[in-house]
């Protein structure tokens, strides 16, 4: 892990939404690194800030949101400070995003071919024929049969799974260094989910790019990711190698997530859930955000916000009383 090259450095990123009702701190002072060839998972409940983190990587944040402060260092530049034109040289070419819902990510009035060709048109100098060849190649890479025919199809003629493959192909078109996948399988059937995940993993290895995998499903993370950031209410509460986090001492929230995975915990009769509800983002607690739902909280948790502290060189968490339970399962 240490010898791998660092390709992305996020420092103290804050993305806030300035709404009429108040400020929503969707991403509140997070920092993490991304290494070449790895799969970094970002996990947490809906609204926890994971998707916004993903979009912030290429500053695809729209009014009333914006990146307040922090740095996103990529290839010697700070993405957070670039203007639209500069951002457009990175988007879709060096860093691309796979959206969640394949039924709505594709433009209904243009053919697959046209939409697949677009990143090539924008970011490469290939000729028309070369682009056509590349499109065929891309569709083959993502496992779509009969690519010549598919290029002429419209999105409505394809199934959900196929559309998601096309979306992935589009994301891969200009050989990006980083792919951000925002809940790439949530909107798909269970059987297709496994296929798509397998596809993603294969592509990442083949092309040696990095993948930021955003999901609320820790089971997916367990399958796919090397490292994981656990986010809650806009903050990273734990980060580290996946195996270590699932098996050993961790943040109560992470513990709760792990225990909620059916089958992880020995007691198969009960389905564990995390008690309580996600707090109102306009009125976050003074101290630890998770405190109201935490079984282990004490006085200090209400007063002070815990900061990330190292357990070992790769693993940190933000908690005054991390649980010492050890999970016996693998």
């Amino acid at each position, binding site marked *: 892990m240490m010898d791998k090259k660092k390709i992305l450095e996020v420092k103290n990123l804050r993305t806030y939404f300035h709404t009429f009702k108040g400020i929503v701190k969707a991403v509140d002072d997070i920092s993490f690194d991304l290494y070449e060839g790895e799969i970094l998972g970002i996990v947490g409940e809906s609204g926890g800030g994971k998707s916004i983190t993903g979009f912030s990587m290429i500053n*695809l944040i729209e009014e009333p949101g914006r990146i307040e402060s922090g740095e996103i260092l990529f290839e010697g530049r700070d993405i957070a400070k670039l203007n639209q034109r500069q951002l457009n040289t990175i988007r*879709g*070419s060096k860093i691309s995003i796979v959206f969640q819902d394949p039924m709505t990510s594709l433009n209904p*009035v243009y053919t697959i071919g046209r939409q697949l060709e677009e990143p090539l048109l924008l970011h490469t100098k290939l000729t028309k024929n070369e682009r056509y060849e590349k499109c065929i190649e891309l569709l083959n890479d993502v496992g779509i049969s009969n690519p010549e025919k598919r290029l002429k199809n*419209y999105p409505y003629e394809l199934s959900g799974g196929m559309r998601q493959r096309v979306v992935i192909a589009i994301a891969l078109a200009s050989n990006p260094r980083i792919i951000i996948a925002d809940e790439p399988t949530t909107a798909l059937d269970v059987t297709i989910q496994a296929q798509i995940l397998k596809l993603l993993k294969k592509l990442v290895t083949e092309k040696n790019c990095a993948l930021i995998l955003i999901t609320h499903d820790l089971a997916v993370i367990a399958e796919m990711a090397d490292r994981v950031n656990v986010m809650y209410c806009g903050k990273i509460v734990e980060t580290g190698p996946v195996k270590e986090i699932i098996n050993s001492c961790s943040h109560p929230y992470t513990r709760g997530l792990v225990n909620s995975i059916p089958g992880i915990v020995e007691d198969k009769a009960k389905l564990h859930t995390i008690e309580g509800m996600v707090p109102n983002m306009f009125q976050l607690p003074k101290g630890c955000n998770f405190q109201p739902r935490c079984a282990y909280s004490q006085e200090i948790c209400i007063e002070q916000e815990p900061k990330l502290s190292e357990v070992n060189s790769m693993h940190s968490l933000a908690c005054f009383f991390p649980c010492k339970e050890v999970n016996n399962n693998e």
Partner: protein
Amino acid sequence: MFKFILKRLTQMVVVLLIVSFIVFFMTSIIGNPVYNMVPETATQEQVDHVIRQLGLDKPLPVQYLIFLKNALNGEFGRSYKYNRPALGLILERFPATMEIVFVAMTLTIVLGISLGVYAGSRPKSKVTKLIMGGSLLGISLPSFWIGMVFIYLFGVTLGWLPVSGRGPTTTIFGINTSLGSLKGWTHVILPSVTLALGNIASIIRLVRAGMMEVMKQDYIKFAKSKGAPNNKILYGHALKNTLIPVVTIFGLQLGGLIAFTTITETIFAWPGMGKLLIDSISSLDRPIVSAYLLFAAALFVVINFVVDILYAIIDPRIDLN
């Protein structure tokens, strides 16, 4: 596709038949045209003779069939006033009308779509507020009033532009048109703008609403994540999705433009079909009125048909069968 065209063609014919029947029915129950055709001093014999000549003594259904047969041959009778074939008169004036309609249409498309796209993509800017205010005005102003204001401002007060009549014509591509000369354009501009104003306003509002809807969609965000520049997003990705309702409205508007030439031509003394119609209504020149109505009906039916085809071309999801 072929089945679709066939089906629509049959519909067109049915509609035209119905319209022809209504036109015939209405015009025949109102008054007796005979008295327009004979001098006041005519004897009963002469009157009867004319009645027989015009076929007015035959039963109504037969008259209708004769009317239909003649209509299909382009025969609508002779104008009482000009004593020339009605349809011929209309066709003579047709190019003049289509001139201002054409210019008005172009203005509508260019200004309507571009301003609408701008207003839709930047809903909060000051310019947008101006555009929207202007468009509200545009749909509330009666076109005859706008015409009068223009005439007074540009004609009487400022004297910049001529306010009546058509400019000198030349022949371009075999069509007699006044758009070939600068002087011709000075005559065309006021009537065309008057015609177009209301339509431009409607299109702006429609395009803006559509764009605002479309810009919220996921596929727009996905396109942005590909690194597409703003113009490409607006005009490439968003606009085509907005165009579907716009095309329908535009078709209707085209029909409206042709209808509104009646007013505009009257105000600006433009020698087109519209003015002819109004004059004919005032002078009770029935053949021209019937001929105009059927001609206009045919035009509208064809326009609607073309709009439907365009619809299907733009939106690939539409199943023509």
